[in-house]
Each structure stands twice: as C-alpha cells, then as structure tokens.
C-alpha cells in the first residue's frame, strides 16, 4: 500500500542535485540541457522568464542585478534579494523553490514525486530548517522530509563500500560545501548510522574563498593598476559605484579557484569584464595572475578553524585521533588539494576521498528516501550459514512496520532429535521448544516503536545448544535504518527566576536527542492573571545551550496566553501542563493545558525569520563589549586567571567584530551581517560559559554553608525521613558540585532549605519567634477583630506548649497580612511562569 519516497535532493549553496533510489541502486539525474548532474543554485529573472542554473549564471555577468545566487545562506532570515528586472524582491525560500522546481525537470522517467527528502546542514537551526521545508512545499512537494547532510554523506559511503567492514567503527564527515561547513562524528551502532556529535559554521564555504580571492587578491591588484577610492567598500555596498563588479568578480574568482585545483597558477582576464573603469575613467585589459600558494595562504586561517572544530568534537567525546577511522571528505570545496593536505596534517587522521564529493549528499538522500515509509517491500534479508553439523540460513526483515514479522530458517544436515526455541529478550515471548525441520517459519510478535531483540537457539535432546553461527535476531519496529536525526542545539523553555529577578532556562530537548520526540512539563503561573486584562503569560522556547542565559539563545517562538483569552481568573500558583512535540522536520508543536480554567491552547511554532538590521547589530555588539569589560574587571578582582584570559580573548574578538561591523554599509548586499550576528552570539555564549565558573563558585559556597547549617539542625531535631532526605542530597553532591550549571546547585540548596523549614516549623523556639514577629505587625493586618482573637489564642497556646496548634495560628495570622507585605520584594515578571 504505502510507497517509498525514493527521491532525494541536495539543495546546495552553489549547486543542487536530484537522485532516485530504485531497486537497491541510486541514479543521479542529469540535466536534460547539457547533461550535467549539478544544477547551479542560481536564479535569473529575464523579462517574463525565470531561468535557473547554468544559463542564469551566464546572465549573472551581463545583468547581475536580476540574478540571485547563494541564497541558501540567507535561508531563515527576513532578507530578500532585490531583482532589478522585476522591480521587486524575492525571498530565499521563493528562490530555493525555483531551484527545486527546475530539478524536477531532471527526472526523465516522467514521474511526478509528491514526497522528497531534502538535505540540510546539521548545524541548520529550526528556523532555517523550516524555511527549507517551506521551499519544498512551495515547489509543489506535498511532503518534505529533511535529512542532515552528514548522515546523507555517510549513507552514500556505507552503501558504496559494502564490502568494507564498518561494524563498530566511527569516522568524521568533513563537509565543506559552497556556503556551509559541517563536521560530524558518525558511528555505526548495531548496523545503524548515528551522528554522535557535530559542529558547523553556516557561513563558511567555497563562496567565502571566492570573496577572499576578490578582496585580498583581485581588488589589491586592481588598485595597483588603476586609481580607486575605497574599491572594496564601493563593491560591497548596494548603492556603491562598483556593486555590479562585486558579483562579476565573484564568478571570476570561483573560476580561478577551480582552476587552481589542477594548476599551480591561473589568470583573471580583466578585458573580459564589461564596463570596467577606475575612478578616472581608465579601462583595463591586462591579466591578473593568481598562484596556488597565494590562494592557499589566504584560506589557511579558515581551514585551520575547521580543524579546530574537529578537535573540539574529539575533546568533547574524549577521543584521540587514532580512535577515528578516517575523515570522509564531501562538498565541492574539498576538491581543493590544500584542504585535504592541511586537514590530514592538522588532524593526523587519514582523509577519505573515495566518494564523489559533489554528488555524495544527493546519493545519500536517495538511499534515505528509499527506506522511508517502507511497508510491503522487504529489506535485505539477513542470511547466515553455520559451521559444523548444521547448515542454517536464517532470514527476516531487520526493519518492520508491522506488529509481527516472519522469521524463516532453512536447515541442512542431520536434524534428528534437534529442537529450536525463540525467546524475546524482554521476557514477553517464548515460542516453546519445537522440533527442528528443514524449514521453519515463525511469526515473531514485535513491540511497537521498539528495538526487539530475540534469541534463537537450536538444542539437542539433552538441551545442549548447537552452534548455528550466531543466535540473535534483531528487528526494529517502526523506525528507519538511520538511527534518527539529531537535534543540533538544546531547545529550552524560558521561565522566570523570582529570586534573581531574571529568567532561567529549563531544558526541553537536549542537543543530539533523536527527533521526532516529545516531552511534557508542568509549570506554575507566577502571578495572578485577571480575566479580561492585558496581562498574560508567555511560553517561550529558545534554541541554544541550556546552561546559557536566554538572551544568548535564538528565540524559536512564543505561545502567549492573555487575560482576554482565559475564561476565569488564573490564580498565582496554578499548574499549566505543557506538551512539546518536535516532528522529524523540526516543527515544534506546543500545547498548554491550563488547570485552573480547563482551557487548552496550542500552536505550531513557525519561527520568524531572522532580521538583522545593520544599525541594531552595531549597538548590540557595543553592548556586548561593555558587558565583557565589566565581567573582565570582576574576574580580575577575584583573581580568576582562567576566566580573565578567556574574557580577554573574547574582548579581542568582539573588538574585531566592531571594526567589521563598522565597515558594513546600511544596504550591505553580502551576508556579512548574518555572519557577524552568528559570531556575536557565539561570543556571548562563550562569555556566559567563561563566567559561569563565577556563578558556580557562588552557588558552591552557598551550598556548603547551607549544608553545614542544615546538617547541624537535622542532627539536633530532624526525624528519620529528614535525615534520609539530606543524606540523599549529600550522596549526589559530587555530581552536582562538579557540574558547570549553577542552577543545578541552586536546586539542591532549595531542597535543603525545604528540609530546614520543615524542622523549623516544629521548633517551639522558631514558632514562638514567628508568632511574636507577626504580633508586632498586627496593625497592618486586614481583619483586626480576627487578628486579636488569633493573638490571644496564640498566647494561650504558648503557655500550654501546644506547638502544632500554634503553627496553625501562625499561618492564619500570615494570611491576614496584606499581599504587599507578603511579597515585600517587588517582582519583575518576564514570562509569567515559574
């Protein structure tokens, strides 16, 4: 009934491809015009016509303002690309959709795929992923499945090198494409590919090398030949005199770069550039020579950063170079010989170039598409042959969507007095002892959505096991042969931290958790929301490390529940049950059930694209710098050498950013501002982690103090349950004290404080003291008559030493206090939930 997706698309920054899985093989479709596999991701608008690909590139030189390229890097931003011939703008999503539509023309089999797998960099955030999905839908695909590029590359490799035993091996996928860089640690666990960890930069790729060539090699050469005032600035600014030249030169640079992969030097012919004149009107017809070593020296720093990212992954996973089998090179930019050489040199891990870096992702996407929605067709049977007395061939589907799966075995040899038995390892199934025959067939029941492991045994009449070469049957129900895609960043809920008058993050889904996934949280309303008022609560989800402050993470969406929406007043402390569902394509569905009113609110977060106005960016960077300076001062005062070193380094980086941001014109056409914004956020995150030690230190010493006081109190007055409660906290002390998350320590302090309060609430001295304290404030109480009665009663109870009753009197007196007195500290609410 159900069909397979079969079609996979690599939607690249510079080139895109489409491939199809059929009967175990993948075909990469060729462009009917020109028979190339790759379609340049370039869209041109000429009169009424939309031209995509090679021809669009040609127009880029004649009429660059009506041609758009490299839009993948602007996916998920509010940026639109101005198209002169249309007199309007196109969004990156619309442009990507044009490329996808054009790819459909490659399909020579006449099929019209309704569903497709589209690859995205592992480091794409939710907003960018959703934008990619939108593009697919806009191009007419009814269902779009996203697949992370490192998994696609690894699938292409694993399926190509079928004879190499990859069992239990791990490798790194180094994907340096046209515009994005991804590096991922991939492992085969039980026959399934899994991305263990990854790093990436969405703004690093071949395109940046092109820009570097223009900026540092071609522009200086031009300046030497003629007279220009601020040539680079005038090229990059949209209103600049040489803006058109920028696009033209980028193409020239790309050609030069490709040539340099084979030759030791190349030329850029200025005579071929139309209307090139300097400020004095002088035109050029000379050649600019670029050597391979010049090129290598300007990209060295960028390549070294990529190695740094790989080292980070190794350190994080406590691995050494020797633990990694190889570095699998994919992406067009890995064709640059220097990249391969330098990476091998820096990492001391062999680089693997056995797959074609240009089409590997598309091939992998097709393999993935070929197993998507698998229902009736069988996957490769697992066949085994035993040694010795028995010859056995066992066959079954390793992946199943059914609730039971047929297991077949054929046996040759002396079967006399032999039996078999199959048990499920979770203890819920046992076939019983059955007589072995030449052919056996068993229906194995499967648990839904689980990894089902069975043990198959052949036994003789004395119940001794006969070796048939392995006895484990493993069937995954309802999953795919890829272990799943991983979430690139933590997703967290923003809550109010009343103590610090700030917000804290609560982890919803941790980085590298397998999607799709689902979680539930219960939060409390932090302030009373009056029905019909403008007040409200916000359920806000951000993307980024959970130990950071919410402001350093990317907002994904807000579900607002306002006073006008609720059917009755929402009292402070009311529980709200939140459900968060994350689909395989990273749509986040949030629903909130408000216990007080019985209402349910839900929303699918469609994250807003990022808008990065140049002016705001500059202000934010300056604010970050001053924050860094004050943190540095703090760290120096506390003699925290490690932190001050890190902060100093960050200040250096942020000052660099200030300079770069300063050179941006308001109408900058490059994607520099997104790069800068990304870097700014990274610096802010690093600052937070560098200074977290400060907050951790404070939390640690506060914990130790609380521990001392509470332990003393419990020893003196605590009961068994309280003793048990604090020893449980002490027992896990090693774990949380060594964590880098101050909130974790605070939670433990709160637990101890809870015990302290319980004991105090029984302590006559404390109860009397509290009573006297309340008596002092009797004038402010709401009901004076009742207050007087309670106070008289309380005095009597003290005389009678009736402490339990006194506790009740205290709490009733407390409730008579006006709420302003109860919450004397002014609260600031950000989200309204705690």
């Amino acid at each position, binding site marked *: 009934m159900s069909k397979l997706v079969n079609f996979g698309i690599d939607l690249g920054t510079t080139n895109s491809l489409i491939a199809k899985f059929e009967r175990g093989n993948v075909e990469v479709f060729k462009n009917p015009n020109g028979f190339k596999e790759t379609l340049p991701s370039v869209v041109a608008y000429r009169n009424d016509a939309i031209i995509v690909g090679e021809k669009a590139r040609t127009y880029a030189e004649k009429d660059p303002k009506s041609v758009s390229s490299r839009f993948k890097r602007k996916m998920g931003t509010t940026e639109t690309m101005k198209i002169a011939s249309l007199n309007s703008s196109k969004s990156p999503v619309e442009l990507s959709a044009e490329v996808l539509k054009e790819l459909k023309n490659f399909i020579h089999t006449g099929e019209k795929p309704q569903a497709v797998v589209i690859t995205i960099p592992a480091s794409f955030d939710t907003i960018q992923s959703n934008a990619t999905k939108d593009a697919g839908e806009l191009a007419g695909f009814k269902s779009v499945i996203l697949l992370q590029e490192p998994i696609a590359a690894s699938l292409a490799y694993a399926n190509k090198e079928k004879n190499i035993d990859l069992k239990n091996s791990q490798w790194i996928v180094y994907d340096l494409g046209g515009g994005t860089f991804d590096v991922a640690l991939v492992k085969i666990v039980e026959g399934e590919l899994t991305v263990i960890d990854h790093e990436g930069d969405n703004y690093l790729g071949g395109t940046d090398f092109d820009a570097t060539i223009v900026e540092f090699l071609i522009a200086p050469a031009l300046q030497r030949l003629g007279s220009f005032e601020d040539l680079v600035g005038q090229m990059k600014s949209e209103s600049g005199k040489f803006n058109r030249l920028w696009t033209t030169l980028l193409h020239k640079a790309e050609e030069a770069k490709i040539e340099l992969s084979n030759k030791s030097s190349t030329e850029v012919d200025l005579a071929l550039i139309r209307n090139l004149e300097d400020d004095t009107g002088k035109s050029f017809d000379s050649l600019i020579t670029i050597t391979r070593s010049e090129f290598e020296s300007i990209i060295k720093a960028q390549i070294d950063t990529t190695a740094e990212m790989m080292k980070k992954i190794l350190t994080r996973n406590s691995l050494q170079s020797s633990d990694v089998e190889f570095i699998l090179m994919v992406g067009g930019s890995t064709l640059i010989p220097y990249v391969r050489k330098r990476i091998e040199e820096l990492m001391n891990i062999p680089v693997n170039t056995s797959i074609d870096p240009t089409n590997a992702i598309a091939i992998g996407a097709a393999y993935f598409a070929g197993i998507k929605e698998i229902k009736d067709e069988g996957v490769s049977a697992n066949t085994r042959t035993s040694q010795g007395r028995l010859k056995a061939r066992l066959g079954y589907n390793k992946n199943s969507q059914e609730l039971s799966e047929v297991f077949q075995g054929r046996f040759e040899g002396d079967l006399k007095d032999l039996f078999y038995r199959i048990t499920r*390892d979770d203890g819920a199934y046992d*076939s019983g002892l059955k007589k072995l025959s030449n052919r056996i067939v068993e229906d194995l029941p499967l648990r839904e959505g689980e990894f089902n*492991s069975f043990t198959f045994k052949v036994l003789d009449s004395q119940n001794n096991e006969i070796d048939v070469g392995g006895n484990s049957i493993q069937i995954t129900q309802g999953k795919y042969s890829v272990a799943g895609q991983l979430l690139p960043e933590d997703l967290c809920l923003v809550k109010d931290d009343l103590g610090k008058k700030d917000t804290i993050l609560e982890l919803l889904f941790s980085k590298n958790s397998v999607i799709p996934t689902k979680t539930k949280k219960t939060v409390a309303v932090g302030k009373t929301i009056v029905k019909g008022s403008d007040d409200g609560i916000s359920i806000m989800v951000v993307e980024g490390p959970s130990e950071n402050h919410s402001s350093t993470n990317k907002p994904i969406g807000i579900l607002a529940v306002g006073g006008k929406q609720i059917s009755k007043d929402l009292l402070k402390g009311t529980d709200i049950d939140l459900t968060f569902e994350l689909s395989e394509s990273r749509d986040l569905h949030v629903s909130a059930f408000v*216990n007080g009113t019985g209402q349910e609110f839900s929303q699918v977060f469609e994250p807003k694209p990022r808008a990065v106005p140049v002016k705001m960016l500059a202000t934010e960077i300056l604010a970050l710098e001053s924050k860094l300076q004050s943190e540095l001062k703090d760290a120096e005062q506390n003699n925290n050498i490690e932190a001050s070193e890190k902060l100093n380094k960050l200040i250096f980086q942020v000052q660099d950013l200030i300079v770069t941001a300063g050179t941006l014109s308001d109408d900058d056409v490059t994607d520099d501002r997104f790069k800068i914004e990304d870097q700014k956020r990274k610096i802010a995150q690093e600052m937070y982690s560098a200074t977290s030690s400060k907050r951790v230190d404070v939390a640690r010493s506060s914990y130790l103090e609380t521990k001392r006081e509470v332990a003393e109190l419990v020893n003196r007055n605590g009961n068994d349950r309280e003793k048990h409660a604090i020893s449980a906290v002490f027992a896990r002390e090693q774990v949380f004290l060594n964590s880098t998350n101050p909130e974790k320590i605070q939670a433990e302090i709160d637990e101890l404080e809870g015990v302290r309060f319980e004991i105090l609430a029984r302590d006559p001295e404390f109860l009397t003291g509290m009573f006297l304290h309340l008596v002092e404030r009797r004038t402010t109480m709401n009901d004076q008559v009742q207050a007087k009665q309670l106070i008289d009663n309380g005095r009597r109870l003290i005389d009678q030493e009736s402490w339990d009753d006194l506790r009740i009197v205290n709490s009733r007196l407390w409730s008579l206090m006006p709420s302003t007195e109860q919450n004397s500290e002014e609260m600031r609410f950000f989200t309204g939930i705690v």
Partner: protein
Amino acid sequence: MKYPQGLQVSIPKYIFVFANNLFEIEKKISISGDPGNFSRNITKMRESLEEHGITYENPEGEPFNETRTDLDASISGNGTENLFVVEVIKPIIRAGASGISAVIQKGIVVVESRNQGEADE
C-alpha cells in the same frame, strides 16, 4: 543489543504498589465513571512513572497463546483454543528506556475461549 545496565537494578517494591493501584483506579473509573474528572491526575501520575522508565499495560481483549510469557493466565471455561484476555487482575509492568524495555511484572489475567464471531468484534 543487550538491555541497559539500569534494568538489572532492582525496582523498589513501592513502584509496583503504586503502578498496580493506579491501574486499579483507572479500572474503577472505567466501570463507575469519572464525575470528579480524576483521569487527568491519574494520567499525570502515570506519566511521572513513565519519565522514570516504568510503564504498565492493560492486556484486556488481547489474544492469548502459550507463547506469551508476559502473562500469567488462568483459563476459564472449557475451551483452550482462540483464547482472549477477559479479565486483568494485575497489569503488565515494564521498565526501560525509550525503544528498549523489559517485563518486570507479569500481568495476572483470566483468559477465555471465544468463538470466531466474538473475536472479530
């Protein structure tokens, strides 16, 4: 794949008491209705157990044969073919992480032979 180490850890007895009683409350509600809307609270308690890897299942109505080792069944009536679970005294309790779990308490059930027409309903 072997089951996670965690599964070998003994499960405290109160977990079984808790799960069995929750199951019983659910059963009672299904019989006598839920005027006070307790279901929501019970769901929350059940989910809290699930967060710690403990799930319980009601096998009522499921077919039974001798290969099922997650049930301790008493056969009522005379027939021994086409058996179905007609009454659940204790649910099946399982422990484990998502994707892998194991039975930690067998369900205690009564099974009965049904003729074909009934089984299809």
